[in-house]
């Protein structure tokens, strides 16, 4: 099983959203990282077949998805970034509706909906209108619908936004269980989500895939560039201007401990730290720091 993005591009009048991307996705969880506007959502919409590439093709097991049509969609699950639903739907009503569109039999629908309601801890709100649920619950309904047909290819755009830490952990575990022999692509800028479960990652910037590999392979890109050191509290402002700070922590006796990115140590007494995905992310996207968690 393989999903191959064969030199796909998406151009608008004055912008190239995705620029000649080639990527071979094999079973396992894939993380798609990138700043806002990097082209992740456009890429995912093309994989979902709801947006046609300006150039290139998305191929599933060697065949273009435009030819496979129903056969591809039968094996596909998708959660868009903004999960939309008909406002009058209840949780159960919505899942039954999507299940019918996914071609599940009545019996399978009942079984699968019950199972997912349980897994997503939505059983108690099954008869409530989705519109009345909290953001996290809505997101879980969105994830549930994507899993209804047990897809071979699952594409989730920002699946954990709005989930609390406990929900995120449960989601990661569920996905790890589910991902066996399946292609799962998760786009996020919450780096820790993919760090824990992604087998491989692809990093997008300005419409291109600029790096691809396992977490270990990718973090090697910032090997020797992550430092940790301590500064006096009163000099924080000065260092904030000078350094790319990954995080900071107040210590006792008026000191602040910093984790920062630099080619050479910038604070005397700094020691080299083991790189993590968030270090790489900030190294590649210096303007982005809101998504680190």
């Amino acid at each position, binding site marked *: 099983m393989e999903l191959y993005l064969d030199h796909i591009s998406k151009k608008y009048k004055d912008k190239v959203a995705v620029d000649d991307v080639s990527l071979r996705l094999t079973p396992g969880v894939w993380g798609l990282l990138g700043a806002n506007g990097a082209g992740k959502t456009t890429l995912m*919409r093309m994989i*979902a*077949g*709801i*947006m*046609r590439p300006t150039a290139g093709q998305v191929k599933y097991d060697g065949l273009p998805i435009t030819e496979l*049509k*129903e056969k591809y*969609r*039968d094996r*596909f*699950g*998708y*959660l*868009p970034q*903004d*999960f*939309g*639903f*008909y*406002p*009058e*739907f209840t949780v159960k*009503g919505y899942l*039954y*509706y*999507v299940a*019918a*569109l*996914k*071609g599940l039999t*009545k019996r399978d629908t009942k079984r699968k909906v019950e199972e997912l309601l349980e897994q997503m801890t939505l059983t108690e709100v099954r008869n409530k209108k989705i519109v009345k649920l909290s953001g996290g619950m809505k997101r879980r309904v*969105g994830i549930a*619908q*994507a899993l209804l*047909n047990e897809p071979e290819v699952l594409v989730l755009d920002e699946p954990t936004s709005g989930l609390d830490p406990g929900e995120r952990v449960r989601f990661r575990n569920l996905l790890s269980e589910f991902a066996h022999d399946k292609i799962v692509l998760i786009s996020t800028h919450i780096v820790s989500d993919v760090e824990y479960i992604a087998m491989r990652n692809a990093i997008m910037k300005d419409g291109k895939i600029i790096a691809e590999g396992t977490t270990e392979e990718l973090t090697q890109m910032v090997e020797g560039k992550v430092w940790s050191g301590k500064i006096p509290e009163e000099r924080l402002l000065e260092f904030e201007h000078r350094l790319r700070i990954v995080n900071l922590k107040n210590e006792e006796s008026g000191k602040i401990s910093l984790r920062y990115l630099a080619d050479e140590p910038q604070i005397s007494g700094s020691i080299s730290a083991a790189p993590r995905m968030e270090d790489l992310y900030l190294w590649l996207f210096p303007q982005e720091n809101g998504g680190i968690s």
Partner: protein
Amino acid sequence: MRIFMLEVKKIIRTRVTWILLLAALLLSGLMAYIPVTFEGVSVQNGDGERTEFSGLAAVHYLQDLRADISGDVTAENVQRAVREYQSALKEYGATDSYELPEEVYYDRLIKYQPFVHGVREVFSDEKTGMAPGFLSLSLEEVGTFYEKAPVRLANLMRMEGSSQSDIDKAQVMYQKVEKPFQYYTGVEGNSMDYQVLYIFLLTIFCAVIVSPIFSMEYQTGSDDILRCTKYGRLRLAVTKILSALCITGITFLLCGIIWILVTNTLFGWESTKTSMQMIFSASSLPALNMGELEWVNLLGSFLLFLSLMSLILFLSARIKNAAIALAAAMFFCILPVIIYIGAPEVLSNWLQCLLPGGAIGLNNSLLYAMTELDFLHLGSLSVWNVHLMFIAAAIWIPVLLIGTAWSYCRRSM
């Protein structure tokens, strides 16, 4: 079938939908009953006192009063009616019935009032079209009512500038009208006006239900998920179209049928045998009685209604905002009414025929078009307006529905 049922359930469970469906159902009875309240008659009893009857009592009184002359509207009956009018007018030195005291009208003329309908029209001046006064009509002349009626039809069309071929076509249609006309007291023009109004209201209600079918999915972004599912493209588009048309179509027909049943039950089923020429113009072309006219108006309007719903579905599949789709739907519901009032006659006739739902409205309705003598010309071809309306609607429906499904499937690609 399962997707269809779920789609139907989804639409019906929407609050706006079931409120409108309920309102449509309640209106069917109300719109049938309102014309009853317009009926009224004043009757003098044995000791000289007058009693006012209104509503159903007035209808029943008039039915009893005219029992002996109901049925065939023979030339003799028409002569008898004109004689009564002339006698009353002479007695009171009046030239027209509205100059007579009210009680004279109720006591002597109301019985014959339906039978003089059309007499003055048929014997109007050939050149000016002016209707003669009752006193200038000779009873001998009135006896030729049915011979004179087709002549009047030709004269009228000539005055309106119709071509000889149009007149010939109209004459062929008019020959099929059953003569003598039939008359039974009951269903009158007021009821038919209310059928027209009710059809217009039903159309607006259904337009509100149909307009968000696709646009709401776009607005909420839910179509992103739906179109990624196995049956989320053409099959879903077709299902949405069918479910919307089924819900609104069944509502339209069911409410329309209830209206007919209630109306005819209130006014009496016998009155459905009245020739439409006795209620509308004596020169009306369709060979229909009032009962048949009610059904033709309902079913003909249903075809036009389907063409308008198809247009609204098409707009819904093209517009990504539900509020704008609703506004567009309302615009196309009201547009034919505005055009009919404001546009030059030939243009408004064309648009009434060619626009989807162009003959659903008020003055622009199918019913009134059926009482008119308008023919439209395309080169050497001339077609009675009503026929053209049906032809245009039958073309629009598949074209717009295919366009709807195509627009949905191709969106965002």
